[in-house]
């Protein structure tokens, strides 16, 4: 069952997820490939609308009408999740792959106690529980208390009966993480885990996720629009733009020498990561509408290096060791750095 460190755990190939609207099909995710190795932390960066959340909602099988997955393979541990029966998929979803959402206030059910919400996760995925009766209830309760303790909730046994609104924002976020981890998943997808939080609590929550990742030896996909967060916590990074991956590689390399103009733009717009001596500049323009896109580079309209040769479909190309980028301007010198 366990995959040796460094082996691939999740492979997504050619994923295309569309949303049918009155104006046409919106290609929110268009030909995305993802690889997550066991034990690593992958950062996924992009603006809202870049398709980063939709990509991993697709992995979780959470795309609902009017959205649908049009093409692609989602291989977890070698099994194509799209071909699993609903029952088998449910065992993976939540069991092997768990997810946290952006805002715990809306992600936790206001009408159920925290204990219930952790308990049902344990009950759904832990096959080692006693069959029935008080022993089973006690085992679930103990696990729930243990999980709340793990994420740093003080006196957890007293708080199982409380409702989400009785906790502070940071505590709620921890509870959501506790729920996600209660099934001992092998992959945690953390979708914007800190956006809804105060700056001081952001750091604590990210530390918590990193600690637990090391402790449990699981992989983490950290979806964020903040390259700074990725720089601190992720081994590798994947930059998305307008439904496509535009660059990926080891975090340190990508930040030191970004290959795609969009990545460079992103870095230049973040004060603490901007390359020394360069001015902080926001990227001009807006993300294109994802309906009826012409077959050309999607960053064309905003790219400082755009030229007539960009008006054709652009493929991902190798850009150094373990690195790829979707740009025809990648120079051999830079790519070898």
């Amino acid at each position, binding site marked *: 069952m366990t995959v040796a460190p460094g082996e691939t755990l999740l492979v997504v190939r050619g994923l295309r997820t569309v949303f*049918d*609207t*009155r104006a*046409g*099909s919106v290609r929110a995710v268009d030909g995305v490939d993802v690889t997550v190795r066991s034990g690593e932390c992958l950062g996924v960066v992009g603006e809202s609308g870049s398709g980063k959340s939709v990509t991993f909602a697709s992995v979780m099988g959470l795309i609902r009408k*009017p959205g649908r997955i049009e093409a692609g393979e989602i291989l977890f541990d070698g099994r194509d999740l799209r071909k699993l029966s609903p029952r088998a998929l449910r065992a993976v979803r939540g069991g092997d792959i768990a997810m946290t959402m952006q805002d715990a206030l809306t992600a936790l059910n206001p009408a159920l106690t925290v204990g219930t919400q952790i308990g049902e996760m344990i009950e759904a995925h832990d096959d080692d529980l006693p069959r029935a009766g008080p022993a089973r209830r006690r085992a679930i309760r103990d696990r729930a208390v243990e999980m709340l303790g793990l994420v740093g909730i003080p006196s957890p046994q007293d708080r199982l009966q409380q409702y989400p609104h009785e906790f502070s924002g940071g505590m709620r976020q921890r509870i959501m993480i506790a729920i996600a981890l209660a099934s001992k998943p092998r992959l945690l997808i953390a979708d914007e885990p800190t956006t809804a939080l105060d700056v001081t609590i952001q750091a604590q929550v990210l530390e918590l996720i990193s600690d637990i990742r090391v402790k449990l030896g699981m992989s983490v996909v950290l979806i964020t629009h903040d390259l700074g967060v990725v720089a601190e916590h992720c081994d590798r990074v994947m930059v998305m733009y307008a439904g496509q991956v535009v660059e990926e590689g080891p975090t340190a390399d990508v930040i030191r020498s970004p290959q795609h103009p969009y990545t460079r733009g992103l870095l230049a717009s973040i004060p603490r990561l901007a390359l020394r001596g360069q001015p902080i500049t926001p990227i001009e323009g807006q993300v294109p509408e994802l309906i009826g896109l012409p077959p050309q580079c999607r960053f064309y309209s905003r790219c400082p290096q755009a030229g007539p040769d960009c008006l054709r479909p652009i493929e991902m190309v190798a850009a150094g060791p373990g690195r790829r980028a979707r740009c025809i301007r990648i120079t051999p010198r830079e790519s070898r750095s």
Partner: protein
Amino acid sequence: MSVAEQIPAPAPVADSIFRRNLRTFMENRLAFGSAIMVLLFVLMAIFAPLIAPHDPYATDLFRRLQPPAWMEGGDWAFPLGCDALGRDILSRIIYGARISIFIGAAVILVATTIGILAGLAAGYLRGWVDVVISRLVDILLGFPYLIFAIGLMAMMGPGLSNIILALAYKEWVIPCRVVRGETLVTRELEYVEAARALGASRWHIMRKEILPNILSPVIVVATIRMAHVIILEASLSFLGLGVQPPTASWGAMVADGRAFILESWWVSTFPGVAILLLVLAINVASQGLRDAFDPRFTE
């Protein structure tokens, strides 16, 4: 359906969008068609003397409980048959539309006027005016509608103007609450503040600045309530507390037929169909109106 068949099948991707658009279109058409139907009922009421084939009050004992035209013993001169006094049911339904629509319109008109005035006063002036009006609204909401109307009718006795009063006494509460709520929001908006700063009078602000901006929810509510009022009037008439015989009113006609349900089902059935059609048409049309005018409330 036939429209869909004539159009060549679209590409698979566009299929669901096409169908959704078609459905939206048809939904709008449904609301539009219902509005036309309401209009037809209104025209029927206005021109009743020209349309009705017979005098709705002319009794004919030889035609007592005569069945509808398509049944044995029917006569195409009396398409929906005759009631226990031999009166033509179709003509009475046509005349009955006058009562339902007149009372419905009158109640809504009176209630909406009072409701707008009271709601504006409560929402804009606040203070003791608001306290008094809101308390009165709370108290009136404490009565089940029909029981309130029945109590009033018992006190005032039957009659056209009494029904209108009995229903309007409580009905105004509904537009009043809508207007008050909208006014509370609108009075804080910048352009109202600006008008106030420029020294406009309170009456001017209420009439010229606030009222035009809260009118669409009021109209939507008025049309929805119209359907309720028509059913309430029919219910009062059914209980014998409405318009008095021999005046043709749908509720009373249904009541008249109760004694004959063993043999002559048509006496009760057709006036009820008329109520259902009119109320249904108003409900569907007002829902379309709501979607168009006040999309906040759309599901």
